[in-house]
């Protein structure tokens, strides 16, 4: 059970009683031995809570820290589950936008002569707009790809590399560093195929290169990062990420 006198003394020590009440307590303290004893307990408790254990301040974490840094692999950038929150808006907006935007400034890579290619979109709230020369760090990205009949590609990798060389996986998602996923299996179609997830990574300002790699056999993302790519065609878009 809490002691009201103790509570008030704590509040007084913390400067949380009125000036008038503080003056009353000062006067009472001068004449009351029990109050002085109680106040001494409060002060002792606060002093004990502030007092560090012996030797604590002599500890230097840095030597062990750098040893740990050497021993621990950096975690992969994570995919945020934007899909759930954006699903309804995206489904409607993406379909409408996609039809409306064809031939209207979409940054498309692959060219008319190529059977493969990809397009990127900026997803900001409910808005889906074609990727231009810039985007912002908080923006999500959506993609569509083209793999026309006659193409031999059956697999796709879609990723970004920033100016520091850090890789951000869009497709497939790589959320568990210990389980690198395989490339996305794709078919051929006369129409562009929209990938119905908007992905937002914790990007930093600077240049971001977006790469789409079309392959003829599956490959894991870790093999791709190690440069072990089977036969493939690649397309790249570059965007400046703004703060």
């Amino acid at each position, binding site marked *: *059970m*809490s*002691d009201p006198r*103790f*509570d008030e003394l*704590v*509040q007084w020590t*913390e400067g*949380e009683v009125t000036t008038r009440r503080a003056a009353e307590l000062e006067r009472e303290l001068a004449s009351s031995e029990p109050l002085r004893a109680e106040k001494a*307990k409060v002060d*002792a*408790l*606060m*002093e*004990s*809570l*502030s*007092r*560090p*254990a*012996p*030797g*604590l*301040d002599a*500890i*230097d*974490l*840095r030597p*062990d*820290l*750098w040893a*740990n*840094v050497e021993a*621990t692999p*950096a*975690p992969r*950038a994570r995919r945020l589950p934007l899909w759930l929150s954006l699903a309804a808006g995206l489904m409607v907006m993406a379909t409408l936008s996609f039809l409306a935007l064809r031939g209207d400034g979409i940054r498309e890579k692959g060219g008319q002569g190529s059977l493969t290619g990809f397009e990127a979109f900026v997803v900001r709230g409910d808005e889906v707009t074609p990727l231009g020369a810039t985007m912002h*760090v908080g923006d999500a990205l959506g993609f569509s790809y083209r793999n026309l009949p006659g193409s031999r590609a059956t697999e796709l990798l879609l990723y970004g590399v920033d100016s*520091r060389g*850090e890789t951000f996986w869009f497709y497939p998602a790589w959320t568990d560093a210990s389980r690198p996923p395989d490339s996305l299996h794709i078919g051929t179609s006369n129409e562009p195929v929209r990938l119905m997830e908007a992905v937002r990574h*914790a990007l*930093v300002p600077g240049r971001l290169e977006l790469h789409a790699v079309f392959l003829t056999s599956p490959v894991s993302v870790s093999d791709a990062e190690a440069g072990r790519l089977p036969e493939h065609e690649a397309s790249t878009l570059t965007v400046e990420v703004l703060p």
Partner: protein
Amino acid sequence: MSASPSKSNVVPLFAMEHREDDALMALSREHRAAFDTLVARHQHALLRIAAKYLGDVAAAKDVCQAVFLEVYQSRHRYQPRGRFTHWLRRVLLSRCHIAARKGRLVERTRPEPGPTPSQPDELILAEERRRLVEAHVSKPSEKHREVVVLRYAGEHPLEEIADILEVPLGTVKSRLFAAMAALSDSMKEEAP
């Protein structure tokens, strides 16, 4: 040419420290020495908070190591907003909650050495009190405990604690006073 000081250039010292931390975080993307400086600047404050929260120096050391490792690994993703110290405290408290919940600290397996006989009586008593209090710090709830350790071990003013925990100032005050009362009650119960 140096800029003449003007009122608009005056910022609180704490805010300046935050900005320096942000600058160091940015530099540490490429330079370990910058991160080294950041660790040196914050490690003792973090250790004091964690040791008080967990009541165990060795566990506090482990937790602080994990915090700095996490911060170092996320240095490329850190968004400078002039609130580095507050963010660091939040990361620390989150790790402390997890460490405490894991139950690895139910028993103190590595007791600290007792005071040496050459110490004055006053110091010996203060050290005994500290041990006694730390044995009871786990009694208040997590939310109450974190306020107590930020206030006394971390020496943060109440307004800063409100900022760190992202709760209203009134909530911080009520948690602090409730935690102190719980601590006092717990210690009274154990007293002969």
